[in-house]
């Protein structure tokens, strides 16, 4: 053992801590050879002895007895005082919960009353990019949407997912901007925004697959522009993308988001639950 190794264990040696017997023997043997380390160990042992004397001297000290009495008195008071704040807390909790429920109900009623029927929205209010027959063919099985104003429930665009791009488009296109003008055919834009915000609020509750490319077109991203549209498809369309189909529910419809490029072609699709 050298002096550096000895220095690492000299504290434990002087404090009589548990250590490996081999290391202890080596350290003691080192003190026979090295005078400096022997003095170091001697100093450490003397310090340990002094600290032990201080410990034994102070070992009898205790807190004054009055503290226990004061603590127990405070404890009794705490027991009596405690129920009152908890009752207040409970009352406040229920009041807040009821207020929140009422507020939620009012908002829901207002939203429902302001929500127009699906067909007029699709026909007049919603910003719908050109939706060409090629889209339906590309996503496999869905029929092409009829012209504007004749949207069917099967292929009804419900929202534009990318609200930011939608709002930026509105900003860029004054005809889509919110207006109080009565003769503006897109004046129901306000209703559309409300619908979007409600759907966007529910968006976090949805589970969706990854976007899957449709057809063999060149890959694109949202940076290239485009629109995400919510549609409903026959459940059998899942099989076309290699996804399992529950045959018990084959007649039901499934929601999907279709990514439509600026050229109106469907580029990608994801299924939503």
């Amino acid at each position: 053992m050298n002096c550096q190794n000895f220095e690492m264990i000299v504290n434990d040696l002087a404090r009589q801590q548990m250590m490996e017997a081999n290391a202890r023997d080596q350290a003691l043997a080192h003190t026979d050879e090295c005078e400096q380390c022997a003095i170091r160990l001697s100093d450490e042992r003397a310090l340990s002895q002094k600290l032990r004397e201080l410990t034994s001297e102070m070992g009898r000290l205790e807190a004054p007895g009055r503290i226990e009495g004061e603590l127990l008195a405070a404890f009794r008071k705490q027991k009596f005082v405690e129920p009152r704040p908890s009752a207040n807390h409970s009352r406040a909790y229920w009041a807040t919960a009821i207020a929140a429920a009422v507020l939620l109900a009012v908002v829901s009623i207002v939203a429902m009353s302001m929500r127009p029927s699906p067909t007029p929205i699709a026909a007049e209010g919603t910003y719908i990019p050109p939706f060409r027959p090629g889209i339906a063919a590309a996503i496999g099985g869905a029929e092409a949407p009829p012209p504007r104003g004749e949207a069917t429930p099967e292929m009804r665009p419900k929202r534009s997912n990318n609200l930011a791009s939608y709002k930026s488009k509105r900003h860029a296109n004054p005809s889509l901007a919110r207006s109080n003008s009565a003769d503006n055919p897109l004046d129901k834009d306000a209703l559309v925004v409300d619908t979007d915000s409600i759907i966007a609020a529910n968006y976090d509750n949805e589970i969706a697959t990854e976007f899957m490319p449709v057809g063999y077109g060149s890959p694109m991203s949202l940076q290239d522009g485009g629109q995400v549209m919510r549609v409903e498809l026959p459940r059998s369309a899942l099989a076309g993308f290699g996804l399992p189909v529950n045959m018990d529910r084959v007649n039901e419809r499934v929601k999907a988001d279709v990514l439509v490029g600026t050229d109106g072609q469907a580029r990608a699709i994801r299924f939503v639950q």
Partner: protein
Amino acid sequence: MLAGDEEALAALYRRRQGGIYRFALQMCGFQALAEDVTQEVFMALIRNGETFDPTRGSVNAFLVGVARNLLLRRLQRERFYAPIDDNSDDDTTIHESFVTAEGPLDELSRIETINSVRMAVLALPARYREVVVLCDLQEMSYVEASEILSCAVGTVRSRLHRARALLIEKLRPVRQEDVAPSTAKSARCFA
């Protein structure tokens, strides 16, 4: 105790108050402050006992940890930096020393040594003082000390090593003065 059992609080207090009080006194050197801290520790336990998590350490470690935090806050706020004033009880201590079995001189020497060590410990920086108090004076293991100080065991070991080296240095001049007290005084002349 959390369910309102007064006897449980009393039992816990009687078992742990001595260690908490001694820890506080060894850390600050002021009896009044140590009493305040001891009381505040148990008051904190009464008010926020549910914050104790048995998976993170023992009750003792929790209580000493609370005491440490309170002490450091009070010391920082009130600047209790002066060392212990041991003149107040000198008379009684000396008086008691005359009736000990070891003889008055031995006892006086022992008391002097203890006081010098106590003052040397109090003069240490707080981060070194607390490891000396916990590991050497409270005789806790490195693991218990690391739980209280919320640091690694290796940190406790290295701080203790440094603290003991500082203590040896602080206590060394006392011994040198005993060996040659007159040489330093005679070296200077004001004539």
